[in-house]
Every structure is written in C-alpha cells, then in structure tokens.
C-alpha cells in the first residue's frame, strides 16, 4: 500500500521557498512598471470645492494625474454593491475617486502616476485640494443620534434594519422566572495583514488583453469587476494572485478603487502600472471590522436553561457598505453557538459613520456574537450561583438532536442547520485539558502568594465552507506529474500542501509529483474566493472529485492497454497495476501518452500514441463522449454550510498593582471534522488565538470625534508581538466528520480567533470579581474599573 497522506501532519511544501526568501509578492513584480500614489482625504467628511494640480506638474517623472472628472463611462459610476439584501434599503458605495465629497479620512481623491513611487508621492504632496469640512459622524452613538448624516439621502444613517426570530420572545421573557439585561460592546480592529493591498496591471495593446496581478482573496471577483468597469470581454482579462502576505478578510473586498484605476491607467498610458499600499494607507483606506454595541435581554429558569433571548445590536459599517450585511448577519445567527436559545429574536441596525468601511475580518461577526452569548452564560451562572460549565452543559444542543435546525437564515441565504458536532464531549475534553475542576486549589495557592489568577471559557459554532461553489482541475501529464488547479486564492493557508495530500491519495501518486496552482484565472476561471473558512471544504472537495474523474479515466485507458478490467486495477506510486498479477503494470505517464491519440510523436515515449502504433480500427481515435488527455474537472456545491465548533479555556494572572494581564495557559478543543493535516490546522489555531488575544487585550481603532484615526501605525495600533501571545497553545481535537462533503471536513481557518475576547473576559472577570461588558480591555481600563468598584 502506498502512504495515505490525508491526515498526516506533514510540513508545508510552501515553506522552504517562502522561508528562503524566494517568494514573489506583489511588490516583487513589475520592476518596469510606473508607480501610482493617491491623494487621500485628510477630512472625515467634507465637500471638495477645488482640486488644483498645477504645482505638481513640474515634478520630474510625473506621468499623469487623474481626478473623478477624468473617469469615463462605467468607471465614473459608483463601485458595485457586492452582496445586496432585501433589507439593505439604503446601500451606498463609493466612487473610485471622490466625486464632490469625501466621507472618511483616507478616501482617494486623485491618482498620481509617475516613474516611481517617490516621485508619485512628491507630486501628490503638491496637489492642493480645497475642502469645505462637514460635521463628522463618528461612533455608534453619533450614528444613531443622527444629528448629522453621512449621506444626505440616508435618513438616520441607517442602511438596513433586519430582524430574525423563532418562537414568541416577548411571551417567553414575560413568563421566565429570571430575566437579565446586559449591554455589551466590542471595538473596531482590522485584518492588518503584513502585506497590504497591491495591484499591477499590464495592457497588451496589440492583443488588446489585460493582465493583472493583485494581492487579493478572489482573482475571479477582481477579473469580473475589471472587465465590467473597463468594458473588456472577460476572456481578455487575466487575474493572477502572486504570493499573498496574508488576507484575513480585508482582501476579499473587491474591486478596491485601486484595482480598477490601475488597469485603466495602464491601458490609457500603454505602460504597466503598479500600486502598492503602504502601512499608513492600509489603516485609513482599506477596511476595519468588529465595532458593535449589543443590548440583550435573556430569560431563564432556575436551572439556568434559556427560555428566551432578545438581542438588539448596532453595527458600525463605516462610510459605505459595498460588502453588504454579511458581518451583522453572521453575528445575529452565530451568536447562538452550541446552545438552544428557547425563543429568539435578533434585530440589528447597520449604520453609516464617517470612518473606514467594514468588511469581514477573520471570525467575521462571530467574535462579537460569541462575546455576547458567553457573557450571557457567565451572567446566568453568577445570578444562580452555578458553575459556568454547568450552565453551558444544560443549554447544549445534544448530539442526538443533529442535524439541528435553528429556524433562521444564515449568511449564505440557506437555512441555519447544524450538520454535526458533539458539544458535551467537547466540553468534557476541555475541562479535562485545562483542569477546570481543580482550579480552586490553584487559585488558593496563588492567593497565598499574593497573586491573582482566574479561569474562563467560551464556546462557539462556526458555519464554514459557504457556497455557492468551487471547482478543481487535475491533469496527469505524460511525465507522470500531476498538475492541479483551483480558482480560489491562497494567502498562506498551505493549500498547495493539503490539496496535494488529497490528490496524492485519490490518484495513488507520490506527493512530490503533485503541483497545485491557485488563484490564477488562466488556469481556472470559475471560482468564488478564499474566505469563510471555505477553501479546504470547497476546493478540497472539488479537487477530490476532479481527481476521482481523472483516475477513472486513467483506469479505463490502462485497462485497454493491459487488457484488464478497470475494476481489477489499482494505482500505487504512480503505476497502474493489475491487482494480484505482478508485472502487469503501466506507469501513469504512459497512460497519459495513450490517452491522447497522436499523429506526431514529440519524443520516444509519445510514439506509443501515434496512429500506426495504437488504436482500435473499429472505433474513432477519440470515442464519442470522451476527450483526449488524462484530466478531470469537477465542481463542489453543497446544499448549505458545514458547522465546525470549538471551546477555549484560558487562565490569566492580573497584577494587583499595575493591572497588567498575563495569559498563563490557553487551551483549545477544536472540532473541524476530519483533519487533512493536523499540523496546518494547529497552525491556523495558533494564528487565530494570536488574533483573539489581540482583540481581547490590545487592538482597537482610536478615532477621535473629528474622525481622525489617532493610531494609524504599528507604534500605536497594538498588534501583539510574539512576546504578547501565549508561548504555547494546548490543543485537543475532536473529529466529528461532516456529512456535507465527500471528505468529511469542516473549515478551520477562522476558528482560533472567535472565542478569544469572550474567554479572556471570562477569565479576567473570574480573577478580579469585576463584571466586564466591553472588550478589548487595557491595563489602564482594568485599573479604572477596579477604582470605580472600590469607590462604589
């Protein structure tokens, strides 16, 4: 038997190349390209009264300056509203360059193209834009108050109000023996990948074709948008994703203004043009997420069982809403976690503010929802004097209740039905892993030493692998090597490794013989993108199906050659052989030769497929219903998402004097169905936990009342260093296979981040005896909370 690669914790095949510095990121390409830089608004809200470029014109190396007035046809229309929704009654999207008004600091006003980026910035600095400042709407309170409007034609700053419910919440709360009200807040953060956005475009004037490289999470999305905006046939636009230095959601948004402006300029100037976003731009001109306020009423019985849950929340989506309502819809559905809420009603308002737009950031609305639900669980435990795990256990959906239908609509427009999961088993594992039942002893020991420690936990369920579809293409070449392509992109997930593991198993070939290409529309033109923890589920499944199709054909062709029934054949290490008949074998490469009837031999091996060497004279060389070559292509499109879950427990120590918070232990129990590569899954968890810690203790977007982002650098935006994240994350896996796809897998990309703020809040609360209602929390804020508790 050959090795089974699926499930093996093999090292990533990508790493040697990347760690040796041989990666090619966007800015490593296009050294011959002109550089674009942007004049960006210094005001959160203002009317543009004049743009004077005259002082910039004598900058040596300047090639062109463009403002809104230069934009032709469809480029002059607002950028697309990507995901419309019936409740999104007042959806507004920006123009590629500001027209008359700016709506947030960082909005692009003019594009400068010059021989290099230094010169482009020199010219940009000299462009004088006159603004007439307007009142800025900053923060949810101001947006709700609506004393000023972000868009004159959007009353109340309200883009959408959406309600979902099951059961009669009002009756349930009226009848409940206990009712609690909580107000809970999560602040803004952002994806902040180490590589910002970037795009390079080359226009081939002779072929009238556009080739674009973009640091994106969706090459097919960018392709469609550019073709539409520039009025080009789709077949004449190629979009290629080079190595991408992280995405975390911000790069699923498309087209960015720069993604359509740069190709347009490249065509106009007949020269390659490149834009590479710098860090300061990334803070004010990309996307943020997480900012939400929640007001909750919960009714429960004497045992802590939920009877009714009424959630009202307000989502700050920034100045425009191109990505639609995905984030608040996820919050409103995934808030339920592993629990049965009794009657449930959720209503959210999605509000405009004069700040950077919101697009999903790893976790995508779930960290907020989980924070809300887990704060509710802790509040019930406190109210009834129950252990926090007991309250959770009593509200779990039981394994025998799967599939569990919540009676709500999920972010993909499909029903919210959990396909599988064993929550009691997960919690039992977590309690054992962290030593939950022995913690009081540890607390007493610490207290005797003058130290304060606390323990917390949080549980979540995550819908992963959303549709509509992905596809895969597998070609076995005459060399015996296998070339695999899928349309979605990679930003560091290790797709080349896990997809190769899948194909190597399906085909019976050595792992090293499998090469995977992602995110290149020249290789695969139909795709959605990499987001929502969907790549392994969607493309992994599609590639498995494609490999099965290729294998079926290989066995058929080999069966003809070996005069054997395909059912009696197996493929081991790239060789097709007759089971139980040693020596009756043929290499996959030779099968590939035979699969393609030739007139002309291109090498000695190929002679076997030429017209005087092979073929049944009774049949056409390529039979009806067949194709030349050894290929498989297939698509995977599930009925609905598949639901992964996990539970985190954390032990913290708080300094009695300085209020610094130190994470002593971080434990994770994780169920993402069948594991393709445990090492990669654990890497995803590590990265997610780091971002969870970031959202709990460090990162926030500090806007002042005028809409200026005061911490737009890594000096003041506190992305944690390696020194701030737990030095080890203790992980235990549970594998309940998904029935929704051929491999039994569920997504794992976002999981680690989701319960971070909730679990850490629970632990700090446990250490301090202070109720926490908003995250993140800094030592200064914890110290102030202590003081208000002391002074009553």
């Amino acid at each position, binding site marked *: 038997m050959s090795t089974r690669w699926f499930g093996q914790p093999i090292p990533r095949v990508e790493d040697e190349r990347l760690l040796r510095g041989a990666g090619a990121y966007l800015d490593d390409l296009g050294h011959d390209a002109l550089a674009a830089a942007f004049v960006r608004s210094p005001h959160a809200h203002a009317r543009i009264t004049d743009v004077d470029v005259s002082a910039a014109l004598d900058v040596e190396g300047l090639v062109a300056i463009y403002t809104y007035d230069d934009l032709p046809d469809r480029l002059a229309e607002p950028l697309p509203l990507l995901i419309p929704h019936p409740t999104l009654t007042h959806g507004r999207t920006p123009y590629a360059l500001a027209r008359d008004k700016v709506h947030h600091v960082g909005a692009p006003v003019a594009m400068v193209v010059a021989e290099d*980026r*230094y010169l482009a*910035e*020199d010219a940009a*600095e000299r462009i004088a834009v006159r603004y007439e400042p307007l009142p800025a709407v900053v923060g949810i309170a101001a947006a709700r108050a609506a004393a000023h409007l972000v868009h004159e034609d959007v009353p109340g700053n309200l883009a959408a109000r959406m309600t979902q419910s099951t059961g009669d919440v009002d009756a349930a709360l009226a009848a409940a023996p206990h009712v609690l009200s909580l107000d809970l807040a999560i602040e803004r953060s952002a994806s902040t990948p180490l590589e910002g956005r970037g795009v390079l475009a080359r226009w081939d004037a002779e072929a009238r074709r556009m080739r674009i490289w973009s640091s994106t999470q969706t090459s097919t999305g960018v392709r469609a948008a550019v073709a539409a905006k520039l009025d080009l046939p789709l077949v004449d636009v190629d979009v290629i994703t080079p190595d991408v230095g992280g995405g975390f959601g911000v790069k699923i948004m498309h087209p960015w203004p720069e993604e359509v402006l740069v190709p347009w300029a490249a065509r106009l100037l007949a020269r390659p043009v490149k834009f590479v976003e*710098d*860090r*300061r731009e990334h803070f004010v001109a990309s996307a943020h997420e997480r900012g939400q306020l929640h007001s909750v009423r919960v009714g429960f019985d004497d045992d802590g069982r939920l009877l009714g849950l009424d959630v009202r929340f307000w989502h700050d989506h920034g100045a425009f809403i191109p990505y639609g309502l995905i984030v608040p819809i996820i919050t409103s559905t995934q808030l339920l976690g592993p629990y049965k809420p009794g009657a449930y009603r959720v209503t959210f308002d999605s509000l405009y503010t004069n700040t950077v737009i919101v697009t999903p950031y790893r976790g995508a609305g779930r960290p907020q929802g989980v924070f809300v639900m887990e704060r509710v669980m802790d509040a019930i435990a406190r109210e009834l004097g129950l252990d926090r795990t007991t309250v959770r256990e009593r509200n779990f959906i039981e394994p025998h209740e799967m599939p569990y239908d919540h009676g709500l609509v999920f972010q993909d427009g499909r029903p919210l039905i959990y396909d599988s999961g064993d929550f009691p088993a997960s919690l039992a594992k977590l309690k054992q892993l962290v030593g939950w039942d022995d913690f009081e002893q540890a607390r007493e020991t610490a207290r005797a030493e003058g130290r304060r420690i606390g323990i917390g936990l949080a549980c979540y369920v995550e819908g992963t692998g959303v549709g509509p579809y992905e596809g895969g293409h597998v070609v076995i070449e005459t060399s015996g090597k296998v070339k695999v392509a899928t349309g979605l992109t990679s930003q560091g997930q290790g797709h080349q490794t896990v997809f190769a593991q899948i194909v190597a198993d399906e085909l019976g070939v050595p792992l090293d013989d499998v090469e995977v290409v992602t995110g290149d529309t020249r290789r695969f033109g139909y795709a959605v993108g990499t987001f929502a923890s969907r790549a392994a589920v969607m493309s992994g499944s599609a590639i498995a199906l494609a490999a099965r199709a290729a294998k079926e054909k290989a066995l058929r062709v080999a069966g003809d050659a070996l005069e054997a029934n395909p059912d009696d054949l197996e493929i081991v290490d790239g060789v097709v052989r007759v089971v139980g008949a040693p020596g009756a074998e043929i290499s996959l490469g030779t099968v590939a030769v035979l699969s393609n009837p030739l007139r002309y031999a291109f090498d000695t091996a190929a002679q076997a497929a030429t017209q005087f060497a092979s073929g049944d004279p009774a049949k056409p060389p390529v039979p009806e219903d067949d194709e030349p070559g050894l290929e498989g292509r297939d698509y995977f499109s599930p009925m609905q998402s598949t639901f992964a879950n996990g539970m985190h427990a954390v032990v913290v120590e708080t300094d009695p*004097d*300085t*209020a*610094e918070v130190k994470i002593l232990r971080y434990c994770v129990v994780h169920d993402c169905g069948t594991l393709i590569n445990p090492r990669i899954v654990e890497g995803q968890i590590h990265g997610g936990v780091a971002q969870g810690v970031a959202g709990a203790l*460090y990162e926030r977007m*500090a806007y002042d009342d005028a809409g200026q982002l*005061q*911490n737009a650098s890594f*000096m*003041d935006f*506190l992305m*944690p*260093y390696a*020194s*701030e994240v737990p030095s080890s994350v203790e992980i235990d896996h549970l594998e309940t296979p998904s029935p929704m796809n051929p491999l039994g897998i569920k997504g794992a990309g976002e999981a680690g981040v989701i319960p971070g703020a909730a679990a850490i809040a629970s632990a700090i609360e446990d250490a301090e005896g202070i109720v926490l209602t908003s995250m993140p929390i*800094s*030592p*200064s804020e914890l*110290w*102030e909370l202590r*003081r208000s508790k002391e002074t009553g």
Partner: protein
Amino acid sequence: MKPAPFDYRRPEQVDSAVEVLGTLGSGAKVLAGGQSLIPLVSMRLAHPSALVDINRLRELDYVRVDGDVVRIGALARHARVLADPAAGAAQPLLRQALRLVAHATIRNRGTTVGSIVHADPAGEMTAVLALLGGSLRVRSSRGERNVTAGELFLGPLESDVRDDELAVEAALPVLPPSSGTAFVEVSRRAGDYAVCGVAAFVRLKDDGAVAAARCAYLSVAPTPLVLELTDQAADPRAAGEAARAQVQPEADLHASADYRRALAGVLTERALTQALAAARASGAAAA
C-alpha cells in the same frame, strides 16, 4: 511613505562632518541609526533639506570606561553598549535600561547617543542620563562644549544640540561604592515605549542609611523628570506615595493620567526596593 527629496552627505571624518553641518544650515539632520528619523522622514512628518550620514565616522564607534566615567561614542549602537562588559560592570544601570530599549533589531541599528539627542521623554536613555547627571559632548566648527543633562532636555523631542553641532559622546559617571540602581517599566507590548518607567539610584552611608536616592521617570513629563527621594527611600512604599504626589502625567491613547500616576508610585516602590537591595549587596561586597 517615501521621503521627499533631500540632499545626502556622508563625511568620512568628524571634522568634515562638523564642517558640512556648519555649511548646511538649519534644514540638515544628522543620520546615525535612523530608527526614529527615517520613519519620520518616510512619513513626510519631517522634511530635512539634507541628511548628514555619520555612519562612516568609525572614530565615534566606541564604549570605554575612562576612570570614573563611561564614555559612549556617537556611533556606538545600543546592542554594542548593552554587550560591553566593562561598561556594564562600571555602571549597571546601562544594561538595566538598554534591555528595555525597543527590540533587538532596533538596538542593532539605533545609537545610544542618537536616542539621547532625540530627547524623547519616553526614552530610557534620556532618563539614564538625567538620573545619573551625565553629559553630552557636542562639536561644531565653533569648537566643543559639554551639555549637562540638566541643560540638554528642553522639551519633548527637543534638545540643546544646535543645527551646526554634532553630538560626539555621552558621558556617564560610574557607579559609586555602596550604591545600586534599577530600571523598571510597564509597556503595552514588550519593547514598546513605556506607559511609565522608573530608573532608580541609591547610595548608602557606611551605617547602611540612605545617603542619596533619586528616581527618573519616563512618559510622565515633557522632559525626563528626576525626583529627589533621599528622605523617603528607606521606606520604598512611602517613596512611591511621594512620587505619586509629585508627577503630573497626561492621558494618551494607552493610559489615563491617573493610571500613569499610580504606576509612577508602584514602579518607584519596585525600583527603589531593587536599587536598595543592589546597594546593600554592593556595600556588603566591599566590606
């Protein structure tokens, strides 16, 4: 984040550097490690007309103990000063402070004299100079002068080094007998500018009583603040209370003013406790 055009000079000797500075006028800035200057220039928050790169002035790349003074040349990187055994033995506060200066990659480029001239009230080395009463030697075509710590720090990011002057050396007294130092700080992330930091110096009399004690503070005042705490130091908690009463910090993105003030008290207590212990150990070793 690309700098605007500037003139670039890279003299090979101190004399020519000083001459270049004398001719360039007020728009020129000295480039040593560049760890503060380059980001400011790249973000176009600073617009120097010229950068005078002193990285070729090998004659300024030294750390030496010269009698009762530790001398640090203008091209000595933090990492080199941190690793210098003689300087570390002669003045332990150097190591105690330098390990808190940013991160290893920054210490490999950034210079100790450069960070002193930068005069950031959140900088560890400005506090060290202020606490120990060190001085800076500056040279221009007009000659040389010594600037004491008391005269040097004029305001946040503003030091008394004139446009035509090159800081060539920082001088710090070695640790006297029966003395001890400590440096403690609270920062949001390891290596970040401190939310509050305290450097402490204690000297004991022969009978073990406190002869002198003072603390220098980061991030609580526009310039490095030094508090005289000789009378309180025997009881660090009381000294902490005294410090808390005397500092007037401001709020920023990372901390409230009251929290900073509380930290000043807590860290004073911790720093003095450590410095006292070090001083006692030093006295015991001498006896």
